[in-house]
């Protein structure tokens, strides 16, 4: 497994953990308030800290396994995989943003638009790393 693929696994895991944590805080607050809660800045900051911590630890472990591979520049195949995954996740991001806009048209709730946009950004980012792993394994 190349360093780029390991890096994609680490980021995918970090985003899933962080996204699940933020979703859990929002859902717990929604249960208490019985309405769509306002943005949770503390929860968002915690989510970012989780991503950074997992990314640093994960990349350090991955690099320790094979330092030469970690320092190697991206080759042609790596670039193609990144472009292809970024291309498809960009389409997904656009679709999720449009869905968020439609949700605002239906519910006219700014807090819901905020949470929908956070979800869209996190899901498209997870999709990008998942597609990167997929293309490394399946080939481009």
């Amino acid at each position, binding site marked *: 497994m190349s360093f780029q693929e390991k890096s994609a696994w680490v980021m995918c895991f970090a985003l899933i953990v962080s996204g699940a944590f933020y979703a859990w805080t929002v859902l717990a607050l929604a249960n208490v308030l019985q309405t769509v809660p*306002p*943005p949770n*800045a503390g929860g968002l900051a915690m989510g970012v800290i989780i991503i950074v911590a997992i990314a640093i630890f994960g990349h350090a472990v991955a690099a320790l396994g094979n330092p030469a591979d970690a320092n190697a520049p991206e080759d042609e195949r790596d670039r*193609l995989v*990144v*472009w*292809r*995954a*970024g*291309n498809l*996740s*960009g*389409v997904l*991001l*656009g679709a999720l*943003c*449009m869905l*968020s*806009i439609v949700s*605002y*048209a239906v519910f*006219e*709730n*700014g*807090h819901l*638009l*905020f949470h929908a*946009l*956070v979800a*869209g*950004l996190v899901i*498209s*980012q997870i999709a*990008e790393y998942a597609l990167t792993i997929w293309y490394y394994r399946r080939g481009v």
Partner: protein
Amino acid sequence: MSFWEKGYLATGLAVLIAGAGYFYFVWQQSAGLEQIAPPNWGTFGAYLIVVTIISAGSFITLGSLEARAADDPDTVGDFDERDRFVNMKSLAAASYITSIGGYLALVWFLFHHNGDLLFHSLVGALMIGEAAMCFLHVFNYNRAY
């Protein structure tokens, strides 16, 4: 300049012009209401229709003009390996630009707490991402990938 390059240039300009028109209307409405105007679906729909018509119209017009001038009209609009690379690279970079716009809109919302302003910020981020995608196509074609 290739057929695709001209088409993306026209679409990018259409997004910028229609986007400027959209935000001019929002600004006018906001000035009238003395607060951020709520989403106007007529204006948003008009923006989408104008961009679609200009984009489709320019690709059709350019395609027919290129076909008249070309020795083999069937090859006009072919999407070869280089086009595929340029398309992937441009879309991938544009998705990062859209993401940055989305994150900035989210952070700004934490300060103003106005759903209408978040809506307009998100629409703006999508417009900038779309225009960036078109101009990145032109840039990557000229940079000779």
